[in-house]
């Protein structure tokens, strides 16, 4: 039934010249009467999806200054500096160990193209995507954000989704 109706509609379209013109006009007119979808930004705000690529957040505790992110970054917008400190040995008499301390972790968001390679490449889960997006600045230099600012964004990182097929902790198998 519905198939027959659609085929007759097709015939009408091919018979009446310029049918598509009026169809288009009907569409624009309907749109004209409907409410616009515009969000009045400073007054109302759109809520971005949880996994939106808004800004990159840094967990300083997890970072080992391995530099993988800085080296993989396609536009070299991550600047890392660190130094090594002596740690007391694990057991008495053993060799003293070294640990890397992060001094500087800057991301230049004026250069960043939000590809997310740094987040993926980080072996210690120190970098995260945050859906936060309101950090525009009046000059390019102000878009260079240090580790303090990057750490603040860590609070806005959403909980990672549960792994597929895995049961919640303590649940019955």
């Amino acid at each position, binding site marked *: 039934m519905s198939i027959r109706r659609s085929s007759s509609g097709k015939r009408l379209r091919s018979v009446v010249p310029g049918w598509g013109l009026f169809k*288009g*006009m009907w569409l*624009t007119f309907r*749109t*004209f009467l*409907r409410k*616009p979808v*515009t969000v*009045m930004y400073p007054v109302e705000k759109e809520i971005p999806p949880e996994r939106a690529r808004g800004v990159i957040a840094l967990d300083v505790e997890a970072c080992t200054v391995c530099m993988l992110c800085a080296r993989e970054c396609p536009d070299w917008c991550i600047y890392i500096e660190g130094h090594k400190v002596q740690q007391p040995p694990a057991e008495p008499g053993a060799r003293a160990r070294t640990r890397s301390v992060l001094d500087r972790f800057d991301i230049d968001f004026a250069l960043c193209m939000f590809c997310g390679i740094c987040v993926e490449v980080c072996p210690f889960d120190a970098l995260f995507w945050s859906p936060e997006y309101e950090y525009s600045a009046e000059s390019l230099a102000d878009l260079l954000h240090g580790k303090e600012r990057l750490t603040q964004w860590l609070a806005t990182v959403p909980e990672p989704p549960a792994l597929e097929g895995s049961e919640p902790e303590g649940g019955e198998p």
Partner: protein
Amino acid sequence: MSLLDNVWVVLAVKLGLAVVILFALALVVMFAELKVSAHMQHRIGPYFAGGRWGWAQVFAEALKFLQKEDLIPRDADAPVFRLAPMVSLLGTFAVIVIIPLSPVLVAGDLDVGIFYALAAGSVSTIALLMAGWSSGNKYSLIGGLRAGAQLIAYELPLVLAVVGVVIQAGTMSMVGITEAQAQPLFHIGSVGISLPYALQGQVIGFVIFMIAALAELVRIPFDMPIAESELVMGYLTEYSGIRFTMFLLGEYAGMLAMSAIASVLFLGGYHFWGLNADWFGPFVLIGKALILVFVMIWFRWTWPRLREDQLQSLAWRWLVPLALANIAVTATLKVVL
């Protein structure tokens, strides 16, 4: 009274009024285009300028254009380049004087009114050719020549579509044509019913006139001369600042003038059933014209641009024969009935 007897004073007053009304309405049309186009695309459009609905947007834009540098390219033919936008506006202003807003409110009721309007309106062809030729830019030249070909091609169906109305009314005066449409066509009881010419069998003429008017105004879907994806901006490429604004204003004022002429010819002008033409005439006519302007804007934001050869074939293979057939049928019926 003695002051109004002086022909020069009257002329100055009429000229001033026509210019002010036309400019004010052109700004209204510009604003309508901004808003209508926005809402047809699910947007809001200008919103903040002026406080409410962004009504001051057009004034802000006009001021912005005034501040811009008036650039004239080195290779341009400077005097012609400077003159072209003024000629473009001149054509529109020359047309506006014969449009009757009410039985008395008409700047000049010529016996050859519609003939004069079409003749004066075609001055814009020369303006566009001047602009294209003098810019010293190949895109402008192509655009200008396209405009010339297009405007000449569509002048013919425009005039031929009007001939039907002129035959039916038996006069070329704009007031005369309007009054002819106010004559009762038939009677229901003792009430005489008058119909505008669009409902008296000039529907084809009306459609042809509107299509040709769109092409004359170089509006989408007939804006091949300024096709921005092919010709940058056509004959407007080298224009900036106040001269670009004049072209822009000319376009919107032209839309208004063409719509007003179409309202007079086909939609009964300042007459509307039950409304006193002396008092409500201006509002009725401007209302009708604005509805037609809305339709033009509607076309623009719905349809894609035609190809250059499609444009020419539409004019010569369809509109001209149709308009000629319309004239033949109208003339025959006029004699027979």
